[in-house]
């Protein structure tokens, strides 16, 4: 937002590009969970574009992004976040876009030293070089700390009016936002990608391990954002809705998974992912019973719906807490 505004202030026409990888935190969980209903559900990139009065192009890169996540040349960050490869990928896509749409250069809001992996002085040239953007990539917020790019050398933008921000502190950006009259802006300290989340990353690794390869579909990674994931055996796991909103969301997947729900007591919808045996299904039903209001009952009736639509009822005693090892929780 600040980088775009800095360049727009120089009379340059700017349009936004937002790449959707499938892992963007933007609104997903807010849309699903009841408890988040009070939170604003705006898409931040759309909101920013509207505040700035610029067009925004949202580009679906879900398929192409798979290779970035599965084979990151520069490795992962603290979790499953391939930040440097991700940035190279996105700048490369932006380079392709400006060529196709007759734009002259690319700007990003990067700041030297802001992020430990992708925004270091050493990695800034790597992003420019490996993306193919080279000196068409201008970082207005820290440009004065970097060699002049083509837009600066050609006088398309005035380098003197660019900035020299460095480091992790957001104070200079907050001050700049105040100068521009922005009293609202998106969360400044990252957190916009599920891959930087420890719990989400653990579920992704579990998914890859259980299926024996790293390929995934959008639905796979969507489902990792929802519910409790419990894996009692390598060959199956349960996805347990934590509240009504999640139950409604999981309902949309009922035809693709074995599902369970308590008939005798109130309880959550549970999807079973994998290839459970009859014995495994009994254990899954016991776990399903454990998460409903019949958790202390002697017997709970659990409806089991198979993928082919056939149904049956299992009568089970809910599993006890002490019989559920912590290791089962993904």
């Amino acid at each position, binding site marked *: 937002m600040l980088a775009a505004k800095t360049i727009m202030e120089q009379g340059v026409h700017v349009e936004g590009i937002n790449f*959707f990888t499938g892992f963007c935190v933007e609104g*997903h969980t807010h849309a699903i969970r009841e408890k988040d209903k009070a939170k*604003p559900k705006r*898409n931040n*990139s759309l909101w920013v574009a509207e505040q700035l009065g610029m067009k925004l192009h*949202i580009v679906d890169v879900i398929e192409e992004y798979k290779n970035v996540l599965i084979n990151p040349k520069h490795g992962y960050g603290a979790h499953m976040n391939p930040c440097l490869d991700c940035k190279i990928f996105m700048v490369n896509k932006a380079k392709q876009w400006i060529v196709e749409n007759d734009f002259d250069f690319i700007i990003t809001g990067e700041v030297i030293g802001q992020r430990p992996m992708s925004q270091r002085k050493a990695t800034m040239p790597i992003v420019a070089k490996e993306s193919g953007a080279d000196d068409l990539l201008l970082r207005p917020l820290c440009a004065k700390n970097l060699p002049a790019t083509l837009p600066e050398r050609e006088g398309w933008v005035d380098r003197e009016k660019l900035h020299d921000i460095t480091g992790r502190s957001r104070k200079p950006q907050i001050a700049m936002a105040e100068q521009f009259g922005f009293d609202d802006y998106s969360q400044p300290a990252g957190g916009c990608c599920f891959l930087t989340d420890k719990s989400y990353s653990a579920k992704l690794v579990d998914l890859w391990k259980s299926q024996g390869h790293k390929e995934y579909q959008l639905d796979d990674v969507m489902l990792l954002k929802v519910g409790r994931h419990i894996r009692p055996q390598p060959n199956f796991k349960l996805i347990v809705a934590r509240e009504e909103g999640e139950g409604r969301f999981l309902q949309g997947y009922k035809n693709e998974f074995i599902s369970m729900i308590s008939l005798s007591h109130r309880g959550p919808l549970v999807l079973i992912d994998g290839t459970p045996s009859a014995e495994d299904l009994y254990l899954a039903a016991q776990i399903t019973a454990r998460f409903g209001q019949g958790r202390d009952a002697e017997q709970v009736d659990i409806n089991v719906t198979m993928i082919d639509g056939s149904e049956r009822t299992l009568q089970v005693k809910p599993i006890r807490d002490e019989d559920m090892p912590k290791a089962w929780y993904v």
Partner: protein
Amino acid sequence: MTIETLNARRLLCPLPVIRTQDKVKQLKVGDRLEVICTDPGVMQDIPAWCRINGHKVIAATAGNHEYTLLIEVCSS
């Protein structure tokens, strides 16, 4: 004038916007698009996308956990 329908049920933000964006590209000025979604975020996002891109939201309704927006394509 053509009226088309886009089923964006089960899609979460920003996919309903992306699908709307892609569908609108195929329509002409004056055509209308009805988008049916289950993500409540669309009630903010699709109108915002329309304002940015110069299209008009004719109607937005919510009920039974579904959200329906009727858009008129106003610019090419």
